[in-house]
C-alpha cells in the first residue's frame, strides 16, 4: 500500500489570524491517479493546496513525498520537488508573452542570459501537445479565459511535474472547453502524472476521478471511491445534510410581457439581439464564453454604450444611457464578477446593500444611517446571509454568502421589475446554489421578470422557462422549457463557431 503513494499528508493544521483554516486534515495521493478534492467554499481546499505547494507553511502536521518527509519553505521548493499547481483564478501575467508565462520562475538560462529562442520553441511544443490555437509570442492579456487556463496547464507541464494540482479549472469554462480539458487530463494520467482535481462540478469528478476526498469546515471527512458513492451521499458528506430537489422550479402563471429588447447591436461584441420576458418568467441566456451574453446585458443596463437597439419596459420604450437609468427604471443587474463589480469588499455588508438606494433613504442629501441599518439588516436576513453583523466587511464572507449580499442589494431596490442575474451561482457551493435558486423561484412567483445568464447547463435547464442561446454575438435560437436538452443547446451554441478566434473582453 505505502509504496504506491506519491504524496501523503498527515494531521495538517493551518491557522490564519483568528481562524483555523485547516484542522488536522489527511490526504493520500496514489501514483498515476486522478484524485478529486471536494467540499463547500470555505472548507479549506484552496488553503490545503497552498500548503502542498509551499505558499503557506502549516503549523502542524507532516508531509511525505514518495515516502520521504519534506518541508517546503516556499513555492520554489515545491516546484523543484515536482509539484505544480494551476490555480482557480489564472495566475498569469497579462502584459507578458505566453512563453514567459509558461517559464516564469524556471527560465532556460545560459551564462546568465535567458534563451528566448529555445524557450519559444519549447513553448510551441507544449502548446501543440495541448492543441492550443495561439502562439507563444502572444500577449496573455489578449487571450480568452480558456486559453489562459491552457497556458497555466502548459506552465505546469513545463516543470516536468510529477504531481499536478488543478484548482477549479473548469469554473470559467464552457462545456466544450471543459471537454477539451478532460482530454488533456486523461492524457496526463496516461503519461503517469498524478493529479489532484478540485471542482464544484460533479460531472468533472465522475468524468475524471477515481477517488474523492471531502473536506468540510476545515476538517477531513473522508476519502471514497468514485464508483462506490452516490451523488446524494457525496452532497451529504460535503454539506453535512441532505439536499433534495436541487432546482425548485414551480410552474406559475406567466403574466404580460414586461420587458423586451429589439435589435441590440454593439460592433465587435454582439449584433441584432432581440428577446422578451414575461412577468413571472425566468429566461435563460446561454452560449459559450465570448458569445456576447455578458456584453449584451451590460449594454442593456447602460454599462457600455450600444450602437443601436431599443429597450421596452412594460410596453413603453425607455432610454438607458447610464447604469443609473436602468436602475431607476427598475432593471436590476446582478453582475457576473461579484468581487469586482457587485461588491465593495472592504465595506461592511450593510453599506453594500444600501449603496444604490442611499439617496432614496437620505434626508436632504444626508445619509440616514439608522434607516439604512434597518433596511440592510432586514434584506440580509431575508436571503439568509450567514453573517454576524451588518458591519463586517464583505471580504470576510464566503463566495455564496457574498452572492447573497448581492441579491440583498438588488432586493433593497423597491422599484425592481426585471432582475438580470449574470452567472449567479458561479464558484459557489451546492448549499448556497440551492438557496439562490429558491430566491429566484420566489422572485418569479412575485411577478418579476428574470433573466439568468449561465454557462452551467443543468441549472439553465432546471430553472429557465425559455432559453435563448447566443453564438458569435447573435441569438442563434430560442428553446421552450419542454423541448430543451443539453444537445440542443450545444448545437445552437456551436454554430459556425469553429472559426472563432481571439477573445472578447468579458
Amino acid at each position, binding site marked *: 500500500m505505502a509504496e504506491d503513494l506519491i504524496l501523503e499528508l498527515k494531521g495538517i493544521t493551518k491557522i490564519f489570524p483568528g481562524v483555523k483554516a485547516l484542522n488536522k486534515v489527511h490526504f493520500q495521493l496514489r501514483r498515476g491517479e486522478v484524485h478529486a478534492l471536494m467540499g463547500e467554499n470555505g472548507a479549506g481546499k484552496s488553503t490545503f493546496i497552498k500548503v502542498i505547494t509551499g505558499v503557506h507553511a502549516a503549523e502542524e502536521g507532516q508531509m511525505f513525498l514518495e515516502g520521504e518527509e519534506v518541508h517546503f519553505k516556499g513555492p520554489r521548493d515545491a516546484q523543484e520537488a515536482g509539484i505544480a499547481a494551476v490555480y482557480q483564478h489564472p495566475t498569469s501575467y497579462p502584459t507578458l508573452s505566453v512563453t514567459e508565462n509558461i517559464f516564469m520562475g524556471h527560465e532556460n538560462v545560459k551564462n546568465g542570459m535567458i534563451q528566448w529562442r529555445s524557450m519559444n520553441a519549447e513553448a510551441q511544443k507544449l502548446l501543440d501537445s495541448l492543441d492550443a490555437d495561439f502562439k507563444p509570442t502572444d500577449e496573455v492579456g489578449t487571450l480568452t479565459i480558456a486559453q489562459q487556463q491552457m497556458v497555466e496547464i502548459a506552465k505546469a507541464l513545463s516543470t516536468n511535474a510529477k504531481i499536478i494540482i488543478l484548482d477549479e479549472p473548469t469554473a470559467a469554462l464552457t462545456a466544450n472547453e471543459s471537454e477539451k480539458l478532460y482530454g488533456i487530463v486523461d492524457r496526463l494520467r496516461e503519461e503517469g502524472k498524478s493529479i489532484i482535481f478540485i471542482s464544484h462540478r460533479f460531472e468533472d469528478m465522475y468524468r475524471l476521478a477515481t477517488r474523492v476526498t471531502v473536506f468540510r469546515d476545515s476538517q477531513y471527512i473522508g476519502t471514497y471511491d468514485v464508483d462506490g458513492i452516490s451523488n446524494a451521499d457525496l452532497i451529504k458528506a460535503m454539506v453535512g445534510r441532505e439536499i433534495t430537489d436541487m432546482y425548485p422550479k414551480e410552474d406559475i402563471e406567466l403574466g404580460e410581457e414586461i420587458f423586451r429588447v429589439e435589435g441590440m447591436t454593439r460592433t465587435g461584441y454582439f449584433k441584432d439581439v432581440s428577446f422578451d420576458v414575461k412577468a413571472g418568467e425566468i429566461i435563460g441566456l446561454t452560449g459559450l464564453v465570448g458569445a456576447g451574453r455578458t456584453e449584451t446585458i451590460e449594454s442593456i443596463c447602460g454599462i457600455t454604450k450600444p450602437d443601436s437597439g431599443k429597450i421596452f419596459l412594460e410596453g413603453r420604450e425607455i432610454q438607458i444611457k447610464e447604469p443609473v437609468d436602468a436602475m431607476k427604471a427598475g432593471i436590476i443587474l446582478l453582475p457576473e464578477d461579484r468581487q469586482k463589480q457587485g461588491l*465593495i469588499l472592504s465595506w461592511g455588508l450593510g453599506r453594500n446593500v444600501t449603496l444604490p438606494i442611499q439617496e432614496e433613504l437620505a434626508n436632504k442629501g444626508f445619509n440616514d444611517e439608522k434607516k439604512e441599518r434597518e433596511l440592510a439588516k432586514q434584506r440580509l436576513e431575508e436571503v439568509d446571509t450567514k453573517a454576524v453583523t451588518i*458591519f463586517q466587511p464583505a471580504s470576510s464572507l464566503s463566495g455564496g454568502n457574498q452572492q447573497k449580499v448581492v441579491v440583498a442589494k438588488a432586493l433593497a431596490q423597491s422599484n425592481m421589475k426585471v432582475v438580470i442575474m449574470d452567472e449567479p451561482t458561479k464558484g459557489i457551493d451546492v448549499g448556497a446554489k440551492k438557496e439562490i435558486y429558491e430566491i429566484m423561484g420566489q422572485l418569479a412567483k412575485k411577478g418579476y421578470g428574470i433573466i439568468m445568464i449561465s454557462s452551467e447547463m443543468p441549472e439553465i435547464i432546471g430553472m429557465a422557462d425559455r432559453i435563448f442561446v447566443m453564438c458569435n454575438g447573435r441569438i442563434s435560437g430560442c428553446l421552450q422549457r419542454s423541448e430543451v436538452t443539453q444537445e440542443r443547446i450545444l448545437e445552437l451554441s456551436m454554430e459556425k463557431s469553429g472559426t472563432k478566434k481571439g477573445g472578447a473582453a468579458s
Partner: protein
Amino acid sequence: MAGKSGREISAEVKGGIRSKILSWEGALILILVAVNILGVVISPNYNVSNVLREMPRYLAEIFMMFGMGYILVLGDIDISVGALVCLAGTVTVLSSNAGLPFGLAVVVCLLVGLLGGMLNGFIATRFTELPTMIVTLGTQIIFRGIAEVLFETWGNGGGTASMTDTKGLMLLAQKIGPFPIAFFCVIIVGIIMITVLAKTTFGRKLYAIGSNKTAAYYAGIKVEKMRFICYSLLGMLAGLCALFLLTATFGSNTTTGQGFEMEVIAMCVFGGIATTGGKGNLIGGFIAAFIIVCLRIALGQRNINTQVILVIIGLMLIISVLVPSISNSIAARKKRSAA
C-alpha cells in the same frame, strides 16, 4: 420572503468614546497636544496670539487640503494645484490692476481656479486610460506656463506683479479678535467639507468610487461626473487658497504656490487618508494640517534651520504610514501565537 433559518444579523453600532480616542484621529490629537507643549517648552514666544498671527500664510494651504482629501479618497491625485494657485493669483492681481473692482477680482480668482480644476477634470474623465498623476503633471507645467506668459504679455513683465489697490485684500487680512478672517473661513469650509464627506450621499459615493470604481459604477454612481465635480471643487479651493495667499503677499510671482501640492498631500496622508483611495477622513487631515502648521511655527520660533524642519516633516510622514503597518503585523503575530 423571510429567511428560513431565522438567523439574526446584528445591526448594533459598537464602540463608544473609548474606541474613538484610540483611533488614528485620537492619536493625532495627542500629537497636536504634544507639539503644542513642545512649542511652549522650546520657545518663550509660543503663545496663542503669536501662533494665530503667524498662521494665515499656512491657513491658505489648508483650504486645498480639503479638496485634495476628496481627490485622494477617490483614489486619484492632483499635483497641479500649486501651479493653479499661481495662475489664479496672477490673473487676480493682473485683472485688479487693470481696473477690475475687488469684488469681481475675487470672483475671477475663484473662477480661474474652477476652470483649471475643470480642465483637469475634463482630461481625467475623458481619457480615463491616463493616470491622473500624468494628466496633472502636464497641466501643472501648463498652468504655471500660462501665468508666466500673462506676466509678460499683460503685466509689466519680470515674472512678478503686485496688487496696486490693496484695500480689498486688507479687508480680508483683518482679524476678528485675535483670529484672522482666514481662520474662520478655514473652519467654515472645513466643517462643510468634512460633513459632506462623512455624512452625505455625495461623500459615500466618493468612498465607493475610491474603494471599487467598477462596483460603484455598476451600483449606478456616475463615476466620471463625480470625479469631474471633485477636480472642479479642488480647483475652486485652489482659487480660494490663492485669494488668501494674496492677503499675505499682495502679489503673485512665478514661484507662488511652488511645492504646495506635495505639502497638501502630505497633510492628507499624515491625517490618515490613503493615496490608494477609499480610506481615511478629513477630520484626520484637518488635525494633521494643524500639527504641521504648529510644528513649523514652534520650530521656526526656535530658529531651527528650515531645512531641518523639512527633514522632520519627511520623517513624520514616513513614520505615520509605517506605524499602522508595523502595529498590524505585530498584532497579527500576537493573534497567531494566541491561537
